[in-house]
């Protein structure tokens, strides 16, 4: 069937999230509600030292006095924070005994994303044999990392095994009181990851497969802390292109990155939470605080591909404290149906000769709203700071919206700030051109979207880029005849 814009619009609206389904996890779950006892109980359950318990309690006190922010360009029913259970121990009991029991459509998606059989099992919650590859791969990874002195473990483990590092850095970039969701996370975070790269060490592998295997099923209040010591380098991949079916509606994660002198952190995210059905029902609320601090001559690079969540509120940021430090933000955000995304970044220039680059690509379809919100702040001491921002929006149909809110605050006259923004629509002429060359409309849209997103896709580590590209394709697939 050939295409008209009218048809495209209709089809997009009927796009369903094929992969959402309920799971009934038997687990050790706390009663709903939040108070000091619950916070203490979480800390106890995780066998944390007293300083950690106190730190959580401080956060809780601050949170009680805070109000949910209203300023983002999104609307949603406010979660009832007393109606949530704040602790649910992951259950090791597998959901299925074999892959045959898993939703074939989900498996099909996994296959098309190129996810290995072992990983498919892990992700779908199928029992994995101890001698299976995934486990031995993970073990090999761990050994290689340990040889270099790299610490890579869950945050709970780090709190127990490496308290001096955690104590020194946790909350140093995102303080407990930073914002409503960060405070909540600080009080009740369930688990997350910890990574430390010692001085001068170049992490020999993308921390990806390992991460993915181990993070399937992390809770709703995730806490991540990455420390790159002087002169070290790490590329860290978070999330998974595989669709996340999660019964937790509210997700409030905190990620802190610390790049010490001459260090470099590349942090890539591909996120595909359940976005809700075509009427905007259900779906995950994703309120994330991600921030990194750059010391002298260091560099932090955030790359993200977002296709999921009903509501996304997320601003990976860089504090460019050290002279000559560099912050980068590359983002693709896709919204469809009633999805709402308010994402962007903050680049805070404090040191001299600091540089930042922002490339944001928003793709909106259906009745979705896609906003870019960015702050570039140049402090008075930041001589010769430079920023380049580019925000491009691609619209599909007439019912969606793209919005750009660039905020620029400059307190040093030597700063150079450049901002570019474009909005375009996938045109019928483009589609017909592709059709005429034998490319059907669905493939044509994928091609155009990939072309539009190329600058950002290119920033992802190779294997992730291929997956992300397929994910974009799949997110917009089934949306046209």
């Amino acid at each position, binding site marked *: 069937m050939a295409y008209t814009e009218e048809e495209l619009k209709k089809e997009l609206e009927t796009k369903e999230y094929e992969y959402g389904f309920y799971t009934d996890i038997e687990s050790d779950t706390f009663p709903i509600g939040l108070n000091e006892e619950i916070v203490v109980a979480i800390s106890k359950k995780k066998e944390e030292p007293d300083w950690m318990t106190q730190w959580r309690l401080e956060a809780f006190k601050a949170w009680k006095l805070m109000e949910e922010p209203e300023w983002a360009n999104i609307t949603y029913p406010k979660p009832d924070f007393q109606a949530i259970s704040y602790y649910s121990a992951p259950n090791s009991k597998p959901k299925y005994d074999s892959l045959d029991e898993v939703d074939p459509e989900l498996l099909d998606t996994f296959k098309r994303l190129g996810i290995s059989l072992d990983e498919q099992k892990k992700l779908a919650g199928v029992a994995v044999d101890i001698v299976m590859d995934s486990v031995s791969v993970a073990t090999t990874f761990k050994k290689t990392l340990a040889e270099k002195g790299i610490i890579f473990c869950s945050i709970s483990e780090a709190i127990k095994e490496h308290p001096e590092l955690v104590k020194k850095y946790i909350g140093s970039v995102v303080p407990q009181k930073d914002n409503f969701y960060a405070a909540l996370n600080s009080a009740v975070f369930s688990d997350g990851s910890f990574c430390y790269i010692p001085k001068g060490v170049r992490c020999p592998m993308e921390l990806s497969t390992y991460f993915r295997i181990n993070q399937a099923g992390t809770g709703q209040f995730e806490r991540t802390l990455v420390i790159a010591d002087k002169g070290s380098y790490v590329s860290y991949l978070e999330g998974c292109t595989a669709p996340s079916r999660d019964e937790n509606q509210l997700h409030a994660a905190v990620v802190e990155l610390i790049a010490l002198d001459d260090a470099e952190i590349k942090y890539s995210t591909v996120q595909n939470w359940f976005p809700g059905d075509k009427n905007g029902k259900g779906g995950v609320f994703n309120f994330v605080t991600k921030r990194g601090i750059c010391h002298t001559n260091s560099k932090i690079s955030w790359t993200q591909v977002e296709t999921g969540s009903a509501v996304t509120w997320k601003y990976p940021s860089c504090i460019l404290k050290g002279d000559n430090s560099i912050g980068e933000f590359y983002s693709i955000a896709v919204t469809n149906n009633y999805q709402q995304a308010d994402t962007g970044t903050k680049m805070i220039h404090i040191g001299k000769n600091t540089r930042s680059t922002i490339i944001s690509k928003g793709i909106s379809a259906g009745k979705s709203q896609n906003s870019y919100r960015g702050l570039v702040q140049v402090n008075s001491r930041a001589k010769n700071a430079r920023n380049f921002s580019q925000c491009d929006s691609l619209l599909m149909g007439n019912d969606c919206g793209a919005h750009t809110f660039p905020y620029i605050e400059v307190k040093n006259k030597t700063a150079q700030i450049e901002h570019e923004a474009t909005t375009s629509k996938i045109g019928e002429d*483009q589609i*017909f*051109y592709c*059709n*005429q060359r*034998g*490319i059907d*409309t669905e493939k044509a849209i994928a091609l155009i979207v990939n072309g539009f997103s190329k*600058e950002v896709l290119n920033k992802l580590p190779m294997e992730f880029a291929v997956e992300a590209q397929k994910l974009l394709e799949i997110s917009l697939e089934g949306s046209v005849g």
Partner: protein
Amino acid sequence: MLKISNLHAGIENNEILKGINLEVKAGEVHAIMGPNGSGKSTLASVIAGKEEYEVTEGSVVLEGENLEDSSPEERAHKGIFLSFQYPVEIPGVSVTNFMKTAINEGRKAKGLDDMPAKDMLKMIREKAELLEIDRKFLSRSLNEGFSGGEKKRNEIFQMAMLEPKLAILDETDSGLDIDALRIVANGVNKLKNKDNAVIVITHYQRLLDYIVPDFVHVLHQGKIVKSGTKDLAHELEEKGYDWLKQETAV
């Protein structure tokens, strides 16, 4: 190969094509000329299956098959190629990537596997040479920032890659400099054989010195008002369209 009978087509009650009859046999070259706005590009779009235009009467038959229910991509798979008068830009998609996708989609429709990368590269190299296209050019975004002439040459490069049965070249000559015109025309001639056919839409007899037509048709107000041989093109070049317009008004 192609048989168009009593074709009426238009857009929202505005009839643009008013009963076109045209038969193109394998191995033939047909030229379509005619004043601005006479319906030449519309005819090309309707043959290619652009759904914006509604066909109200008549038929387009390719190798005995009525194309009525074929989508544009199906028609492409059947061997119809249109060199656009105004090629569109697709930012971020390289010429190579675009061609790779187009060729593999065509193969998929025929139940074939993707073309092996080695063969694809070899073919790209050959066809780029044929049209004297710098290979650096092929990694640029499709038509983005291309000069008018570059766009046209790129259209013919795509034609060379896709090896269509029926190629419709809509004013491919406009925008080409003298050397480029010769290169493109030579390219078309080399691709021409007894099994395929070409329809060239042009305003200038100059192109027809290179790509020599078997028949020349004049389109005026949505109808073919005169058909003839190559000499007709010379006559038009000399006399313009007025005499024909008068003749048909009578």
